């Protein structure tokens, strides 16, 4: 039941058309699934059953394979996600530099817990393993941008920008 709820939701048909176009370029080339998925992620933030079905159809691979693939990788999701995915590094180099305080600030500020999405579908909070920018830990990655040397004040300033404006990729 839980799986259905988080996998079976509506995706706009205009988006499905765009995903289909991307996937159709790699028909019969299952090894290109990663490329298709990463490009499709520019169109849809998460992969609903409908999106997975379109990819499977266009690439001529089983839909279960698409589902299995997406659910394996941490940066891909079948669950709906917000416009901005805030990935908080959970690894030790950030941990020893006060990552816990940053997590608390983020949760309080957005009124969601780690793993959740805000009601307006603008933010998703997630933990992620090491971002590889440990010389500026604690660090977060918001979509494709990284921010480091975070303090509880600086992280508030950063999030405020995202609350108010649309930040270009």
């Amino acid at each position: 039941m839980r799986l259905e709820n988080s996998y079976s939701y509506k995706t706009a048909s205009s988006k499905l058309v765009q995903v289909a176009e991307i996937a159709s370029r790699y028909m019969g080339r299952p090894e290109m699934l990663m490329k298709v998925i990463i490009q499709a992620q520019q169109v849809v933030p998460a992969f609903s059953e409908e999106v997975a079905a379109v990819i499977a159809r266009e690439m001529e691979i089983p839909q279960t394979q698409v589902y299995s693939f997406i659910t394996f990788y941490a940066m891909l999701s079948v669950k709906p996600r917000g416009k901005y995915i805030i990935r908080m590094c959970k690894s030790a180099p950030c941990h020893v530099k006060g990552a816990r305080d940053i997590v608390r600030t983020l949760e309080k500020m957005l009124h969601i817990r780690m793993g959740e999405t805000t009601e307006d579908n603008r933010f998703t909070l997630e933990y992620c393993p090491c971002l590889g920018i440990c010389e500026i830990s604690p660090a977060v990655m918001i979509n494709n941008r990284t921010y480091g040397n975070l303090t509880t004040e600086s992280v508030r300033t950063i999030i405020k920008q995202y609350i108010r404006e649309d930040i270009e990729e």
Partner: protein
Amino acid sequence: MKETLLLLRNRGKIEPGNAADYIAEGGYEALKKALFINSKDIIQELKAAGLRGRGGAGFPTYRKLEFASDAPGHVKYIVCNADEGEPGTNKDRILLSSDPCSILEGMAIAGKAVNAHVGFIYLRAEYSYLLPILENAIKSSVKANCLGRDIMGSGFDFEIKLRSGAGAYVCGEETALFESIEGKRGEPRYRPPFPGIKGLFNKPTVLNNVETLANIPPIFLHGSEWYRSIGTENSPGTKLFTVCGNVNRRGVYEFPMGVNLKELIYEVCGGIEDGRELLAVQTGGASGAIINASQIDMTLDIDAVSASGGRLGCGTILVIDDRNCILDIVRNNLDFFRDESCGKCTPCREGGTRLYQLVGRIAEGRGSIRDLETIEDLAETIRLTSLCGLGHSTAVPVASSIRNFKSCFWEHIDKDYCPVCCEEGGYTE
């Protein structure tokens, strides 16, 4: 203490995505040499240089090339492992972003050595912002005829393709990485067959870490004898060290193998931040040993660190000060392994979770004296029976911390108050 800049010689000096800049600094000269000598001699030169893998295991690079070179078949691959996932490690990001052409050159030389014509770079998703630099580096190298068809008139073709990950630590394991490039879940394969015989797309494959590949051009440029003059007898060359955590000057530094850990922390990196005391150091990332402050006067080369029960691994030095608690660090490490286990083999999937629970229980003051025995037994079982390096590594921080911080474990089992572990019961999810 002055750095020895071999791999980082071009850092900040050249435009990274521009092969012409790299060539102006002597780039692709090594490839030019290698193109006109035969495959066996290339491998022989790497053997003479004593180059060992920089990704973690320290396996002799020439042997990987030898396996693939001797394997039958016309289609072979070179793979660059740029899935730098070990917590606390940034060295490959620095290399990829400051001097990507040196990696391309290393791949081309390896290609020539085993007669492979296609190379793949598998870049982790967390570094996707480096893709444009790598694309430009490849394009400009092809334009300069240092990659592509008939390189420098030698008749040798070599092209390099970029592939992305999507967030999975286990994909740094070579066979899992192959699976991922093939469009599948990144689950490690059973071995044998080994990658040198059946690797990517079931073809003979040589997979090397970014830093290992970057070592190849200097060896061919200056010769193996010169290379051996740097570093130690069994680990020649330099090593990139990522120093992170509670230290004043964090960053990636390049020193000859065999540098002293204490000097690295106190002289190069300016000691512990905020005037605190050193509690512990973890070398080699989450999969490395945790040692205490009295043990840090040690030599950093592959064999010396192994002999002390840890691993140099990818050269990560996590400095932990006395505001932290070892139990909390071990719990953090185990949380990582538990999350990143791919789930294919039972010891790693179930054992990792159980270890996390057991250590967490002790950290929160709910542990029993018998839990310690269970932990040691379980850690050893996981180490012996897991399918891949991820499972083998899970045990390392646990076993080493019990060895080196016995009193800390006792204090938690005695239910003494620990402000770090018990304040709020640690992480809540």
